[in-house]
């Protein structure tokens, strides 16, 4: 099959090019090949009258080579239809509009991210300021406290989390007892497993596990709930009705979590120790009664209190970060995902950072 899109006749003074056939998207590579074979330099007459069909791709190709030939010598185009001319003009116009493509360099990205982090921090401080001013107003007029919502959120993020918190803590308690028992058995200090499990769970692990599970469970939920309301303009609607989102959405969640988290920590402590008991009974033959007796001797109340104090602080961090990220959601659905991720990552990091801070403080205070 010999399809030809171009024929040309070489004269003394000029070349005559005749375009034929279908100048369309499908035949574009073939036409290009043929056009590339033509060497010019002479004056040119380009006849389009035998073109059967064309589309914008064909015209763009024509434009490209027309400009190419025209640079070398004069080109005269003949035999085009009005349709082709109109299309040519349209494409000519649009090809002049340069589409600016933004390329971001490495350095630029660093700068951008730094500014973003900076403005995130600034926004978070503004959020905290607004939050505390609302809190202050609310405490002055206690009838503004949204008790119904608080109870609802305690149920959602507290009660409904009992099973997962219990299970996780139980397993962690078991793991610690197992690992510890191997080491302690070497020294014949089996009974010290009670100290290990009791103190580590109550002081550190109980609060930390609970906070991390809740950050993943409720912190993300807060961000997604509030973010979705932001997208559907429900938050804007609330503002126009004078329902302050801080009072109606943020504070109830914070209050609820600050109440629920210490209770969950208590439950986590219990389950962790139960896990420890289960493991030591199996591994070290320490009976339930022995374990509890020893626990009663070594686990001072202060350890329990020191662990408990972390509860409300962690709760505040998780709920505040969750709500803050939710309110940051912009007008597209993608940003819900991004902000939910950011919310969980930020709150878990902050929880661990504050846990370290607590450790330092406790050590310095010698308690």
């Amino acid at each position: 099959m010999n399809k030809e899109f171009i024929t040309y006749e070489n004269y003394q003074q000029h070349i005559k090019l005749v375009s034929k056939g279908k100048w369309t998207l499908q035949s574009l590579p073939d036409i290009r090949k043929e056009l590339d074979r033509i060497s010019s330099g002479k004056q040119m007459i380009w006849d389009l009258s035998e073109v059967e069909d064309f589309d914008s791709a064909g015209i763009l190709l024509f434009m490209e080579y027309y400009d190419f030939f025209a640079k070398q010598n004069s080109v005269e185009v003949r035999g085009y239809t009005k349709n082709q001319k109109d299309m040519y003009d349209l494409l000519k116009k649009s090809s002049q509009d340069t589409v600016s493509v933004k390329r971001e360099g490495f350095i630029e990205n660093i700068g951008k991210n730094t500014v973003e982090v900076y403005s995130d921090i600034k926004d978070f401080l503004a959020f905290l300021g607004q939050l505390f001013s609302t809190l202050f107003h609310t405490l002055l007029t206690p009838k503004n406290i949204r008790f119904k919502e608080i109870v609802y959120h305690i149920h959602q993020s507290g009660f409904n989390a009992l099973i997962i918190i219990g299970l996780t803590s139980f397993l962690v308690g078991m793991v610690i007892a197992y690992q510890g028992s191997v080491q302690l058995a070497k020294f014949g200090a089996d009974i010290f497993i009670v100290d290990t499990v009791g103190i580590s769970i109550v002081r550190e692990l109980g609060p930390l596990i609970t906070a991390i599970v809740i950050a993943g469970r409720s912190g993300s939920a807060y961000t997604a709930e509030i973010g979705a309301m932001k997208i559907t303009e429900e938050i804007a609607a609330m503002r126009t009705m004078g329902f302050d989102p801080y009072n109606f959405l943020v504070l109830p969640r914070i209050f609820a979590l600050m109440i629920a988290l210490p209770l969950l920590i208590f439950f986590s402590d219990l389950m962790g120790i139960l896990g420890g008991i289960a493991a030591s009974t199996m591994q070290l033959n320490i009976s339930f009664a022995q374990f509890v007796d020893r626990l009663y001797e070594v686990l001072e109340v202060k350890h329990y209190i020191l662990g408990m104090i972390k509860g409300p602080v962690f709760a505040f961090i998780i709920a505040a970060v969750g709500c803050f990220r939710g309110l940051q959601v912009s007008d597209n659905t993608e940003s819900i995902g991004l902000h939910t991720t950011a919310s969980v990552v930020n709150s878990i990091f902050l929880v661990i950072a504050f846990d370290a801070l607590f450790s330092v403080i406790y050590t310095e205070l010698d308690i």
Partner: protein
Amino acid sequence: MSPVIEAKNIVTRFGERTIHDNLSLHIDKNEIYGILGESGSGKSVLMKEMIMLLEPNAGEITVLGHKLNDISYKEAQSLRRKWGVLFQFGALYSSMTIAENIEVQLKEYTKISKEMRNKLVRSKISLVGLGSHVGALYPSELSGGMIKRAALARALAMEPKLLFLDEPTSGLDPVGARNFDNLIVELRDRLGITVVMITHDLDSIFGIVDRMAVLADKHVVAEGTLKNVLQSQHPFVEEFFKNDYTKQKYLDKVENV
């Protein structure tokens, strides 16, 4: 008589992009005022500034006699109870039924008894032309047109004297849109409210809008009645009102100018 809303020399910038540059307009009592302009001309931003969702970078907006620049928290709260806002996509609270959506402000702000509230809710639902069974449904169970009506019912819950509508007829079928227009006129006549609406709908503009502002190039390029606006030579006005389609459809109104 002082205007219901007055905006003076509004300047709005988002980063380096200027949206409004010294823009002024005023809206009188009891009129249906249209805000129109091409997309990106800052219509929604202007409305958001009027309802205190955004603050302009410079300039002054006065709504119902309150200057928004130095409004106190208390004043702002009481002002918010005097208007109703219809968002483009309804923005009904998705966790509440339609009846609860309409009731929520009454419940929070008034001491009206439960029965009275129910009565008010029912009257609002029927006022906007919805069936009484709709009250028990959730927003996700309604069609687009019904959501618009339900949102209007909610906007009317506090018996406002000022109503903001963001593209009230967009996304409605033509018949539904005309009914909605009639409803707005009826509400204005019966309840004596002032209506501010963002709209692209030619039928609304030619049919029910009393006065309008055309936003383009960061300014109000034409303000006033349809007749006044049609006299403008601004390219956007030319393109929007004096194209072949509009000319044919609204021959009598455009030709008179």
